[in-house]
């Protein structure tokens, strides 16, 4: 605690400070205290005492399909943001959805894409109602 306030005297700081007594988020705490620290055989006695211990799984997350889709999405966003809508790309996009009635303007193309997507949505509404992703997310841990 003494040190985390130290920076105030040292001025500013781009590094986020936290942790230490009472200052950490649950995720940071879990990572430390469930996986590390002293364990000794004596604690098999827990069963004798009769206390039920909730186990919490704090393993490193193995990249899953959901992770990949999340990054694909983020990458597509980053691309639009950084290079804007490139004329060539837009042209292709417009062409591929001509049937949708795009007018060739940026907004028109995007609207059309949304329309088309909307059709898809309505034609499979049942699938889509509560599940924007194509695959079920892994269930939150049951144990």
């Amino acid at each position, binding site marked *: 605690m003494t040190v985390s306030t130290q920076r105030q005297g040292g001025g500013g700081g781009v*590094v986020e400070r936290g942790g230490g007594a009472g200052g*950490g988020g649950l995720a940071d705490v879990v990572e430390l205290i469930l996986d590390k620290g002293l364990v000794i055989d004596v604690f098999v*006695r827990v069963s004798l005492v009769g206390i039920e211990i909730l186990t919490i799984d704090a393993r490193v997350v193995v990249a899953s399909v959901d992770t990949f889709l999340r990054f694909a999405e983020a990458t597509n966003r980053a691309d639009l943001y950084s290079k804007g809508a490139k004329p060539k790309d837009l042209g292709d996009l417009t062409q591929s959805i001509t049937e949708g009635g795009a007018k060739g303007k940026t907004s028109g193309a995007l609207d059309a894409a949304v329309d088309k*997507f909307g059709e898809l949505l309505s034609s499979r509404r049942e699938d889509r109602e509560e599940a924007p992703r194509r695959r079920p997310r892994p269930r939150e841990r049951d144990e």
Partner: protein
Amino acid sequence: MSDMVSETQTPEGDEELVTPVYVYGLIRVGTQIPDDLPGLGPSGRVSVIEHGDIAAIVSDIPLDRPLGTRNDLLTHEAVVDTVAANEAVVPMRFPAVTAEEAVVEELLAPNEDHFRGVLDELEGRVQFTLKGRYIEDAVLGEVLQGNAEIRALQDKISELSEDASYYDRVRLGELVVKVLEQQREEDGEQILDRLEPFAVSVVANQPGQPEDVVNAAFLVQRDRLREFDDAVENVGQDLDGRIRLRLLGPQAPYDFVPAE
């Protein structure tokens, strides 16, 4: 220990009555523990069980519910971190429950020399954890610039409906994650190289998520805390806009407890 719950029923009709205690960590006798430090038991307090010159920080435990709530975890860490902020402590892994008499008989007495040695090692030192994460937009921009395969895949996806592009999107994400994981080895190493001179010891843990760059624990001399802190800040400034650093601590030296 008079305020502790003195008995409990054991589940299988065992007649033995045991007083369970929660053990937070081990200290040297005489270590300062704030009077108002909250424990996770009904008494809301912590106390100390001594044996020779070492001691265990303990408390009572709740008997009407399983351990493991958010609050239990935060309390455990707050106890060891509060002590660690100023003095040496060997933190226990959560959850550490045992019978009251076993704290001395089975924990402290048989391992006295070992614990004393570990506490000596930790004397005058404290842990900090540094976590670094890529700033998504900045780094994904770099990834795109540097990888034609990813750009091509992206173009393809932009021409397909969401359904039709499913497998391409999975593949795209997989490629991006792979590039990030390669990238972080380089970035992470540079960060560690710059901070290592300010620490007694460093443990580099595996970053959890693809966008995590670094997750490392530093054991720092207390009289060099300011230097270490300044060094972290300097690194943070150099990486600003690309990687965001978080410095957690002072913490109990979880990453520097020797394996039994």
